């Protein structure tokens, strides 16, 4: 606002002040040329593009305070623009004590006609012109879950004074995770707004994490303010009467375009962490006794939406008893976002001895600054558990578990076996082989052969003609053997034949007596129910033996008698 003039002598100032720099075509502008020493020969500028509607009005004020004089002389013009565009109020000049002083040119922008021409002195106009509520948004195009901040600042300047203020409507940030940063005391500071000096009050600070993609609108903040502004009236003592007016002011209806996280290169285990993080899995024990407990901490440290994502789950062997993880957060929210660490604390109790691998856990996050995904992996660790029972084989697990707890409590990992019978892998399989079927069926074939042999024997024994022949053979071998040997010697032959016949009867009929005669024999044989003819032929044979001993007989006759004896014996034998 200040156009500082050339100051040739010390303390002399000559300046041009305008009521506003931008105005509508149908509005008025007030220009003051102020000097602090009296001068003559004031030459106003040409006011090209303006029409002078009032003035020049001259006013002088002269006062002594504590012996110190302060002087001011003002020429005032009221102008109305005649054309649109950028206009310049050129230099005015004055002669003070023989020196020529000039003001700086002032640039004025003339816009389209405004609907309601405003009176620069009305309170409405003053408030509108000198009070601004501004929402400053750090990033209007954030990624999903990237922190943005909204700072509401209230700018005001003289002649306004704010005596009271309260929020009519606090914005509810739907679709955002929001955190309001507490401001303990409102403080008035110096600041600039659009290049001009203002007093600033930071009214509200919020950190927002967008939870949805697309165009999201921010609800505005409305403040109800009680404003004191000087009126034109003066009280009895000449002081200006301060007028109070209340005003509701709104700001911050903004649209934020939330970008989705890039799909390209998105890791499978991405759970929505956005920021800069560090990840670690910490084990408090590497080896322990069974039924003692150990802890695994999954910890994420860094900057980002710490409260808004889940930690990756720990994958553990089935035989470990795992309790629900204890979640703890140590997060501070500042204007730059959330900062700190979150952790999941798993308490694990191994019940059986053995080695338990803790599979590496990977944690992925998106860094909005580098616009890239990062994956951090914890290293694989192994917990060694000693001194407990072993889980037995998978079959009938339940009973084994309880059993082994008591009985078999120090079953440890067994050592390798030192002796082995190595066999060829591709072994000839006996089952289903030709040899197998051969060995399986061959005994039955043998059995069939065996049965056939037995049956043949039976058949032979049943054959009458054959059996007689065989019987005769046998009998002749037993009884007529001697007779057969002596076929050449007549006397001996018949002697042997007779003895054989007696012997046969003795053996067959079980007769113990030695005195055989023909009648006795006949009686015996009759008793055995032999037919008359057969008895007769036997007796005849005996008689023949006796006769033949003393009579000439040929070899042929002897052979005949031998054959007859054979047939008689075998006939009788069958009947007996």
């Amino acid at each position: 606002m200040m156009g500082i003039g050339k100051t040739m002598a010390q303390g002399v100032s000559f300046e041009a002040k305008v009521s506003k720099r931008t105005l509508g075509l149908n509005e008025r502008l007030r220009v003051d040329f102020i000097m602090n020493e009296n001068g003559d020969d004031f030459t106003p500028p040409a006011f090209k593009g303006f029409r002078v509607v009032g003035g020049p009005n001259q006013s002088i004020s002269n006062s002594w305070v504590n012996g110190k004089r302060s002087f001011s002389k003002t020429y005032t013009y009221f102008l109305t623009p005649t054309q649109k565009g950028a206009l310049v109020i050129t230099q005015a000049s004055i002669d003070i004590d023989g020196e020529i002083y000039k003001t700086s040119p002032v640039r004025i922008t003339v816009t389209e006609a405004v609907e309601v021409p405003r009176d620069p002195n009305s309170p409405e106009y003053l408030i509108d012109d000198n009070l601004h509520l501004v929402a400053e948004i750090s990033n209007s195009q954030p990624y999903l879950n990237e922190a943005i901040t909204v700072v509401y600042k209230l700018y005001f300047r003289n002649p306004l004074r704010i005596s009271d203020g309260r929020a009519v409507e606090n914005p509810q940030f739907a679709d955002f995770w929001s955190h309001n940063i507490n401001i303990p005391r409102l403080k008035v500071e110096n600041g600039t707004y659009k290049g001009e000096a203002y007093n600033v009050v930071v009214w509200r600070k919020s950190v927002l994490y967008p939870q949805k993609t697309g165009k999201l609108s921010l609800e505005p903040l409305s403040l109800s303010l009680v404003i004191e502004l000087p009126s034109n009236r003066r009280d009895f003592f000449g002081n200006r009467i301060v007028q109070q007016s209340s005003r509701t002011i709104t700001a911050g209806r903004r649209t934020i375009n939330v970008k989705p996280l890039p799909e390209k290169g998105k890791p499978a285990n991405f759970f929505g962490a956005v920021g800069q993080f560090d990840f670690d899995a910490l084990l408090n024990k590497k080896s322990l006794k069974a039924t003692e407990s150990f802890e695994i901490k999954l910890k994420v440290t860094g900057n980002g939406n710490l409260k808004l994502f889940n930690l990756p789950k720990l994958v553990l062997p089935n035989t470990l008893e795992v309790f629900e993880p204890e979640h703890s957060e140590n997060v501070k929210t500042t204007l730059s976002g959330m900062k700190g660490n979150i952790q999941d604390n798993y308490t694990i109790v191994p019940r059986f001895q053995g080695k338990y691998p803790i599979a590496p856990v990977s944690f992925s996050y998106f860094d909005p600054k580098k616009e890239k995904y990062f994956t951090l992996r914890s290293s694989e660790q192994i917990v060694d558990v000693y001194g407990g029972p072993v889980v037995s084989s998978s079959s009938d697990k339940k009973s084994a578990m309880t059993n082994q707890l008591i009985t078999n409590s120090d079953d440890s990992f067994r050592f390798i076996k030192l002796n082995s019978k190595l066999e060829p892998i591709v072994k000839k399989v006996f089952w289903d082989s030709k040899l197998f079927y051969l060995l399986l069926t061959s005994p039955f074939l043998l059995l069939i052969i065996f049965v056939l042999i037995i049956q043949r024997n039976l058949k032979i024994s049943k054959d009458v003609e054959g059996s007689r022949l065989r019987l005769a053979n046998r009998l002749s071998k037993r009884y007529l053997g001697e007779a057969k040997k002596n076929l050449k010697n007549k006397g001996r032959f018949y002697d042997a034949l007779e003895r054989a016949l007696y012997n046969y009867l003795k053996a067959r009929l079980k007769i113990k007596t030695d005195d055989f005669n023909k009648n006795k024999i006949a009686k015996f044989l009759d008793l055995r129910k032999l037919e008359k003819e057969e008895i007769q032929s036997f007796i005849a044979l005996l008689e023949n033996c006796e006769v033949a001993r003393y009579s000439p007989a040929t070899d042929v006759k002897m052979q005949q008698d031998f054959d007859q004896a054979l047939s008689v014996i075998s006939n009788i034998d069958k009947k007996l």
Partner: protein
Amino acid sequence: MNTVSKLFLMLILCLGTSAWGQEKNLDFENANSAYNTGQFERAVMLYKKILEEGQHSAELYFNLANSYYRLNQVGESIFYFEKAKQLSPNDQDIIVNSSFAQNMAIDAVELLPKPQITQLQEKIIDLLTQDGWAFLSVLLTWILVFFWGLYLWNNVPVFKRIFFVFTLVSGLLLIGSLSTAFIKSSKATKTTYGILFNKKVEVWAEPNKRAEVLFLLHEGTKVQMLDQLQEWQKIRIANGSEGWIKDGEVRSLKGFK
């Protein structure tokens, strides 16, 4: 009779061959000492060399599994323990160490309770190996035929009666052992088990991605391999749940690798 004695000779030879391959294997010895000094990678390498040479044994698989356990490779360890169990199902050392390896696995599959009859049946089937049942059947056949022959040949009623009873008993035993052998063989061909080697794999309701994910499985879980459709493999786990996995690394326990 001559052919039969030849067959018997062959049988004895067959049984004998396994005893002949008992000479100490240098690689096996070296691997054992490597294991004992903590060089588990070297032990694994040597044990695998024996396997590649075409030889195996329950002890070899057991030692290999132990080495993998020491190297914290869950899947491999469980796989070779299972292989050891196949060859020697009732070895206590194998059962104990196998449970250590099971501890390391992430999935805990609750077993479906089996009816007692099935349990008994499985116990009986596992009493002998496939060839064991085959040999027993052959032996019983010979005993049966021997007694049958005696029964037919003998004429004394008391002996005949005794031999008849013997024949009957051995005949029943033969039927039993033969049917067990058949059941075991058909079971072995029908059901294939495998060990999962994927770190994590999703199990789907249908062999396409439009279906829903039923559950997750991790490395080291024993699954039964059912149907196959392109890159999808149908599996069943011990608690009876079934599903399809895609690009699953399931190593069949049937193969010897």
